[in-house]
Each structure stands twice: as structure tokens, then as C-alpha cells.
């Protein structure tokens, strides 16, 4: 029996409270629910659930799959509580109804390219309204949840038994939603809210409304830790910290159990849980999600290569013959291509970390990956499907000719020439995002390497910089490298571009949709160069593949990767010199395993206590 079901609530609180006492937190006043401490700990800004975390948490809390297509349909009760989100019709046919899960929230502003960083989270009226509507929407699903009720056949029970079961189920729901035991005062207020809702009736509405209140309360949406001591977070917070780091979701029963029995008090306990959690499929999704943010590749479905440049590669004429029908062909081609690029990225990251070598070296250099029939024209004749390799089918959604379509895309394992592909930086998704409609964007690509891989801050381009770039056109008389170099040669540009351009030129063997090319405008591609990273580390390379191999062993790049992960884990824009970070970076130099790195972060004092808990850290 799990921690959330086995003990009466008050006993549960006392038991949990005893565990908390071991960390030196004062006893709460039963009447007020407040600790005797006169001055609350100063703390840092609490983290709000990110859109991904919110949706994952809702699915796990309700015991429903992370696939809206497999959720029950929206009920009449849901319609009574919140307006149905009917998508407007297009020109010809209404699109399929929007999925009941996930909820589409506004994206977080983010910090350092990542969501879930305190400094990148700020509320807006719109976001608060969406959270309210989402709470009303999802609350109606508690009645459809396979895990919500503690009794069976709730709908057919006599009224008094329904009321009793409803309350006990809601109480357990609140504990899981708050990710900690309820304090007595919280329990009292929840009971009063439940009573009010019952009086307003009917009882199924009362259950949903009470659940909606829980889903809008601070302990659900925010990771607040009122039971933290001056020097350590509570065990419950540590459980949440672990689960949102490695799963993008709430703790499972085993993790709650570990918190309850104080198994998260030290490095060993945290690492033990982290190792267990990394074996769970939820970790795969979360770690892919991190890498999408690291590389920006979750936006690849918006890239817009031009038909006039790439149409013939996919069997289309470069020019549209008429504005009505022929105009629809290129979007129909590019839809699956863009999805395939996205899924190839996800599969490459997942397979490399979880099923392959699992190392940063492999992430940066492996020449194997996935492709589909849609992207076959990009990879060309040298790509080889691996016999007996894994085949994966993923759904894609497209709007073509104003009609929403859902279809499947099949991806298969493939091996690419070692001279053409090496790790994430040569994925078509990454390359297409670093390009314009026609020509590759060495500045975009170089900027990504410096900022995302080397943690170097470039500042804002001077005014007019964008307009000064060479025209993005097919009718050119020189190579893309020559044009870019000429455009950025003036002294006001070159101050920064002497650093930005070389890592971008390294990928000149790849066109704007990521296909490998030996020549550019009839000239052999020159992708060689030298990059001086911060700290004076110098990398001289012959092409993108060589560059990727050298980046894989660069101390600065590896340290940067650890910094990104640690920031992400803590939800804090840590300075590069944060105490405790160096030890993690040193460990990663000795052990190249990404999973080992994540376990080390989970066990570190930096993760367990935050920067203030590390000697030399911010008080």
C-alpha cells in the first residue's frame, strides 16, 4: 500500500512531521498551521510548474495516459464547468476537436533558453486565466480517473457513503497534488470547501469543484516548501525536486515513500532514487525535452525552406504554377519533413543516451540515427537503412488545404557516412534552424555553438545588423562563406563576427535543409577554421564533423553542458562560478556518461541544498 493510502490523514501528518523534525524545523501550531519561527526563511523565488510539467503532473495525478487520444471524452460536467474549446472552422471543414489533454498554455519567457528557471517565470493575466480554465477542465476528469476514488462503484453508492468516499478521495487527491501531507489547517479549509460545494450540489459537481480548487491552490502550481529549515529543504521538496528534474512530473508512490521514510537525507539516498527514476520511461521524455530546449529543436516544425530552392529535390517545380492548387503541394511535402526532423532529433537523443553509448562523446559524434521516407531526399544516397534496425511510428498532424489531417510517420534506424554526420550538430533539425529560406545561416549556426554549447554571451547585434546580411537568394556569384565574410568584414561587425563566423562556417557542408554538399555555387566548400573559446581554448578544424569531434572533448563545452543541466535541475540561473559546480564538472571529465552526470547532480549538495547550502555559496 502506498504512502497516500495506508494511514489516516492526521496520523500521516504526525508521521511526516516527525520525519521533518529530524531536519530541525519547528513544530507547527496546530491552530494556525504556522511554525513558531518568528522570521520565515528568506528563501528564493519558488518555481511554478512549467507547461510541460503541469500537463504531465495532471496526467499522472489522474492516472491517465500522457496521450490525449486515449483520455475519456469530455463530459457534460466539464461543459457545465468550463466553456468547451471548439476550434473555429477553417475554410472548408471543421478541424477535429482539440485534444482534452494536454492544455496549451502560453510558453514561458524562459531563461538561458530553458523553461522552469525561476528568473524566466513571471505571471500574466492571460496565463492565470488559462490556469483557471485548465483547472476547471481537468477537475471534471477526476470522475473519470481510474485512481481518484478510494471506493468502487462510487456512482451507485447511497448518498452518505458517496459523501464519505468523495471526501476521503479528495483528501488523498490533495496530498498527491500538493506533493506532501496536508497541514491540519489546510485539511480543515479543504473540508469546509467540500461542505460548501456539497450544499450547492449535485455531488459530482461538488467533487469536481473541490478538485478545481486544489488544482489552483499554491502548493499545486508552485513548488513552495513551507517546511524547509534554514539549511535544508524538506524531504517532500527533495522528492519533488528529483521528480521534476528527471521526469518533468510529480513523484510516484515510491518517491513519496522515500520522502516519508527520510531516505532522501543524503547523497546516497538521492542517487539511489535518481538511478531508479532514470530507468523509468518518463525519464526518456524529460531528458529529450531538455535537449530540445538546449538545441532549440522543438521549433523545427516552423522552419520554412523555400520551394524555389528545394522543391526539385522533392519532385516539385521550383515555381508555383497557380495560386490555388499547386500552392498547396510544397506545404504538403514539408509537413512530414519537418515532423521527421523533430522526431529524428528525439530518437537520436533518446537512443544515444538510454540505449547506446550513453556518453556526451556519442551525443556529439555518433554517425547513426533515424530517418524517414520524408527526409530521405535530404540524407541522399549515402544514407543506409540499418538492416533489422528499430522502426518507430509516430503521429503527425498537418493542416493542408485548410483541412486538419492526422497521419503516421515511420522512422527507421539508419547509418550515415562518418564523413557527413556527427552527433546533434549535424542533425537536419539543428541545421535547418540555422538557415534562411534559401541559404544556410553561418551566423545563426555559429551563434548557437557559442551560446548553447560554449556558454559564451554574445550580446545584442548592432542596429541594422540583420539588414546588412547578404541577400538570401539563389542568384549568387560567390560562395555563402565569401558573402557572409564580406558582409561582416567592417570593423564594427568584425569585433564579434571574427568569433561567431568560424563555428558557423564549420557547417557550410550543409545546405539550408541540412543536406550535405561538397560544393557551394560551383566552388568546393571550405568549412575549415579556428575557434578561440573563452578561457583561451583553441580549436582548429577542417569541417563540421571534425569540429563536432573536437567540441565533444572541449573542456569548456563539457563544462557548459554540466552548467545547463545543473541550472535546469535547480531551476536557477546559476553563475558559472557557483560553488559545487566545479566538482560536478570534474566528475564529468572523468566519466563521460550522461546518466551518471544526472545521478551526480541529484546527489550533489548543490542540488540538495541549493547554492546557499554549499560552502562558499550565496548565503
Amino acid at each position, binding site marked *: 500500500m502506498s504512502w497516500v493510502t495506508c494511514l489516516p490523514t492526521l496520523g500521516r501528518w504526525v508521521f511526516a512531521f516527525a520525519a521533518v523534525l529530524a531536519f530541525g524545523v519547528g513544530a507547527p501550531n496546530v491552530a494556525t498551521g504556522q511554525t513558531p519561527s518568528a522570521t520565515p526563511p528568506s*528563501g528564493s523565488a519558488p518555481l511554478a510548474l512549467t507547461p510541460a510539467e503541469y500537463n504531465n503532473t495532471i496526467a499522472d495525478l489522474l492516472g491517465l495516459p500522457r496521450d490525449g487520444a486515449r483520455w475519456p471524452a469530455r463530459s457534460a460536467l466539464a461543459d457545465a464547468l468550463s466553456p468547451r474549446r471548439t*476550434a*473555429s472552422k477553417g475554410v472548408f471543414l471543421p478541424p477535429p476537436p482539440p485534444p482534452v489533454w494536454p492544455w496549451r498554455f502560453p510558453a514561458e519567457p524562459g531563461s538561458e533558453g530553458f523553461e522552469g528557471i525561476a528568473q524566466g517565470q513571471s505571471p500574466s*493575466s492571460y496565463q492565470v486565466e488559462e490556469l483557471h480554465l485548465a483547472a476547471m477542465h481537468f477537475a471534471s476528469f477526476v470522475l473519470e480517473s481510474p485512481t481518484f476514488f478510494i471506493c468502487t462503484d462510487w456512482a451507485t453508492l447511497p448518498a452518505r457513503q458517496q459523501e464519505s468516499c468523495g471526501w476521503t478521495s479528495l483528501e488523498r487527491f490533495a496530498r498527491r497534488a500538493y506533493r506532501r501531507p496536508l497541514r491540519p489547517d489546510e485539511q480543515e479549509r479543504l473540508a469546509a470547501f467540500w461542505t460548501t460545494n456539497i450544499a450547492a450540489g449535485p455531488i459530482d459537481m461538488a467533487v469536481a469543484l473541490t478538485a478545481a480548487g486544489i488544482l489552483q*491552490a499554491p502548493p499545486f502550481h508552485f513548488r513552495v516548501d513551507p517546511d524547509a529549515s534554514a539549511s535544508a529543504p524538506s524531504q517532500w521538496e527533495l522528492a519533488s525536486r528529483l521528480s521534476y528534474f528527471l521526469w518533468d512530473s510529480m513523484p510516484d508512490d515510491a518517491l513519496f515513500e522515500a520522502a516519508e521514510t527520510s531516505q532522501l537525507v543524503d547523497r546516497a539516498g538521492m542517487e539511489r532514487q535518481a538511478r531508479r527514476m532514470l530507468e523509468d520511461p518518463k525519464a526518456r521524455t524529460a531528458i529529450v525535452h531538455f535537449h530540445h530546449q538546449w538545441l532549440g529543436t522543438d521549433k523545427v516544425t516552423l522552419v520554412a525552406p523555400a520551394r524555389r530552392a528545394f522543391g526539385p529535390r522533392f519532385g516539385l517545380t521550383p515555381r508555383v504554377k497557380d495560386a490555388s492548387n499547386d500552392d498547396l503541394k510544397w506545404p504538403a511535402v514539408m509537413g512530414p519533413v519537418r515532423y521527421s526532423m523533430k522526431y529524428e532529433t528525439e530518437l537520436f537523443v533518446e537512443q544515444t543516451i538510454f540505449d547506446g553509448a550513453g556518453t556526451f562523446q556519442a551525443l556529439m559524434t555518433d554517425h547513426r540515427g533515424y530517418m524517414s521516407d520524408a527526409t530521405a531526399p535530404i540524407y541522399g544516397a549515402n544514407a543506409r537503412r540499418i538492416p533489422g534496425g528499430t522502426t518507430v511510428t509516430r503521429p503527425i498532424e498537418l*493542416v493542408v488545404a485548410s483541412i486538419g489531417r492526422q497521419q503516421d510517420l515511420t522512422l527507421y534506424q539508419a547509418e550515415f557516412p562518418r564523413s557527413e554526420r556527427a552527433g546533434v550538430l549535424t542533425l537536419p533539425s539543428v541545421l535547418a534552424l540555422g538557415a534562411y529560406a534559401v541559404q544556410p545561416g553561418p551566423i545563426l549556426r555559429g551563434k548557437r555553438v557559442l551560446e548553447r554549447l560554449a556558454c559564451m554571451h554574445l550580446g545584442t547585434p548592432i542596429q541594422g545588423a540583420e539588414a546588412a546580411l547578404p541577400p538570401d537568394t539563389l542568384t549568387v556569384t560567390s560562395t555563402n562563406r565569401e558573402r557572409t565574410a564580406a558582409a561582416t568584414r567592417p570593423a564594427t561587425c568584425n569585433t564579434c563576427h571574427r568569433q561567431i563566423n568560424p563555428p558557423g562556417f564549420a557547417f557550410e557542408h550543409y545546405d539550408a535543409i541540412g543536406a550535405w554538399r561538397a560544393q557551394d555555387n560551383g566552388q568546393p566548400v571550405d568549412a575549415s577554421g579556428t575557434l578561440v573559446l573563452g578561457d583561451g581554448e583553441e580549436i582548429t578544424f577542417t569541417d563540421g564533423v571534425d569540429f563536432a569531434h573536437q567540441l565533444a572533448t572541449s573542456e569548456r563545452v563539457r563544462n557548459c553542458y554540466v552548467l545547463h543541466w545543473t541550472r535546469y535541475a535547480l531551476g536557477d540561473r546559476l553563475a558559472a562560478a557557483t560553488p559545487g559546480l566545479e566538482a560536478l564538472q570534474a566528475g564529468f571529465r572523468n566519466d563521460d556518461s550522461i546518466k551518471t552526470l544526472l545521478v551526480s547532480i541529484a546527489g550533489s549538495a548543490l542540488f540538495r541544498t541549493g547554492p546557499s547550502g554549499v560552502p562558499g555559496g550565496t548565503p
Partner: protein
Amino acid sequence: MISRRHLLHLGGLTALGATLPGSTLRAFAQRPTPPRRLIVISHCHGWPYSAWKMRPTGRSEDESWALDLKSLPRDAFSQPLAPLYEHRHRVLALDGLSLATAELDIGGNRHDRGWIHAWTGNNADFAARDTRSTSASLDQLVAAHTAQPDRLPSLELSVDAALEAGRPIAYNPSGVRLPAESTPLKAWERVFGPASSGDVVGQRRRRTLDFAYNEYRQLAPRLGPAERARLESHFGLVERLGHRLEGLATLACHAPPRPAASFEQYDKRFDAFSDIIATAFSCDITRVVSLSLGEMPTAEFGAAAISDKVHKGIAHYIHDDAEKHAAMTDYVQYHGEQVARLVSTLEAMPDVGGGSMMDNTLIIWGSELGDGWHGYSRYCPVLIGGSWAFNAGRYLYWPHQTPAEMRVPSQILTGGSTRVSGLPHQHLLVSVARAMGLEVDHVGLSHVRGQRGDFIDVSGPLPGLTA
């Protein structure tokens, strides 16, 4: 319970008398400054440019010029613009714009792409089960700026027929289309229903907000300063949301008569929506409305003998068939008459300070296309009102000089493509956003590259509107 301190300013409205416009005046007597209001109107299939344009003799096609509409006789107006003659002192007719960025975007149907570019100024996202934008539409940007905590930030309406309905013009910041209410009765119930007939759902929703807010208040003393500040900023907004639900439910405003359950005529539905808009403005229930004009029955504008469908029966052939071109001219004129009646309704309603409601309203009337052939080249929007920001009463012309290639039918231009486009319409969106108080440099995209690779700056306002 959520504290009610923000509700105090509702007092003026709750003391309203029984009739308009006198009651409206009393309500605003306590508001020193009239609010600015925005109406976005989008009809389908663009304009018949050759019939829409106005070309007094001696005007150059190669230079910018302005024409004073106020001094023109009625018969000098083009047929589609003639319905606005009575309101010509409020009109800015804009000749020389294009939906250039829609031509440069890829994906989707040209109508769908057009709606998104026309009203968000940004690229479309077709990698989903329905069309999405990549940023909020103009009306939603303005609504976020002008919204009052206890009222509707915006109202989304559509007039359309049973087929090909619900043209999407409003998009939230997540890129999701906002559903538009196509039935006047339902729109009336949304706007006036909570105060008129009780709002059971709203009460229930408020209870959950009250619970959440109270949980925050109980938790706050246990939090450190940084935690408390972060939660205060969030739950302060939760409190405001509760006020909105409460504000609408307790509002005393003399609503227009409840409209019929259904209307046989498109025209009558438009007028029913006009009444709702005017009263919603007069009661300050909302300050932003988007009105999407969908497929109109051809019989209403006298084209039933040609086809029973505007879209596939007439609009597509605007460059092929003189009769259909003339029918599309009648079609736009008919929409112009509807818009003119809306302006007249707003002009007849006094606003605070002695002017009319129209004195503090800006209407932007556009479309998703330049023409029914699916062209984006000749985009002919009209501004009406916005007197506080614009020098109205003019027809403005700019030559097409932007380095973006626009598709046109080969009977217009051999080769089917122009070398240049008109001014990107994003400049107009910026002008409107600024008129409504937003300090923005761009709406949607800030720059694009033309097909020949040229850099095209689409930031900044449209030149000459305030001159």
C-alpha cells in the same frame, strides 16, 4: 472570500437608470476620460481593386499622394467605398499595401495563411490539427493592454452562413484560434446574461478562485520574502480574475432587447451584433471586438443568378469574368453598407465628454486576401475613426516598391508574378496598436526576406496616417 476592494469603481454602473443613452451618460459621469475602443472587421475574399481604387485625374501611380475625402462629392467615391461617404471625415482608405509576408510564408491554404498574417502580422503554424498562429492577433494585443480587471477583455463575433463558417481572425498568445460567437442570442447571453439571468457557472468558478486565493493568504506568512513576492504577483492576478467574474455578474446595464434565436438574413444578423457591440461599449463591458464576416448568401447582394456561393461560384473568377467582378464589387459595397450602419449606430450614442461613442472608437476593416483569386498583392484596408490618433478623411496612395514578389493572375501580368509588393501591412498593425496605446515597434514579424533575398523591414508604423 476574495477581497472586493477593486469592485468599488463599479458603483457608477450599478446606479444606472433605465434608458439609453441617458443612463450611459450617468455611468460615465464618474469616469473622467472615455475609454478608447477597437473594432476589427474582416470580410472574406479581399477587394475588386480596379473597382475599389479612386483615381482623380492627374494622380501619379509612381509617387505617394493623399486625397482629401471630405471635399469630394458623393459620385467621386468608388462603388465599394461609397457607403462610407456619410462618414468620410472619419475614413482613411489605404491604397498601396500588400499581405507580402503571407506570400513569403509557406504552408496551408491561402485563406488560412491570410487570416493569420492579416491579423497577427506573423507566420502561421500548420503543424497541428488546426491552423495556429505564432503570436497573438492585433485585437488580443490591444485587449491585453486595455482590459479592465472586472470586464471582458474582448468579444469575438462572426457573421456567417451555415457553410464555410467561422473565419478565424482572433488568436491568443499561444497561437490558438479564439472561437467566435456566431449567434447574436448567444453573444447577448455572454455579454449581458450574467447580470440579467444569474450566472451559476460563474459563481461556481468564483468559489474555486476564492478557495485558491485564501490558501495563498494562509500560506503567505510562512513564506520568505522572495517566495511571498512571487506568489503575490500570481495570486493578485487570481484575485483580479475573480473580480471579473463578479463584476460581470453584478453589472447593472440596460441591455438591448434579447435578439431573436435566429435570423434569416445575414444583414439582420450583422445589425443585431452591431446593437450588442454598441451597448457593450456604452456599458464599458468590453473595449475590443473582433467581427469576422463569413460567407454571405449571394441573394442578399443580388448575385443569386450567377451562383449560390460567393467563394467558389464568384470570388475565384474575379479576374476571368466581368460579371463576377461586378458581383464582387456589389459584395464589398454591401459589406461597406453594413460597416457604415455600425458607424452610424456608434455615432448616435453619446459618450462621456459630449462627443459620440464613435469619437472614441477605431475600426479597422480588412480581409484575409487581396482579391478573390487568392492574391495578396492589392490589400485595401480602411480605418474609420481613431480621431485621437489619425488625421482622417483621406485616401492615401503608396506605389508598390517593396522587394517582394507577389503572385497575380497571368491575365494581369505575364509570368504571374510581380517584382515588387505594396507596403507590408504590418506597418498598419503597428499604427493601430500605437493608436490604442501600445508602445510597440512591430506587431508579429519585424522583418522578412523577399524571394530575391532582400531584407524587408516590416517594423514601425505606416507613414502619413498622422500627418
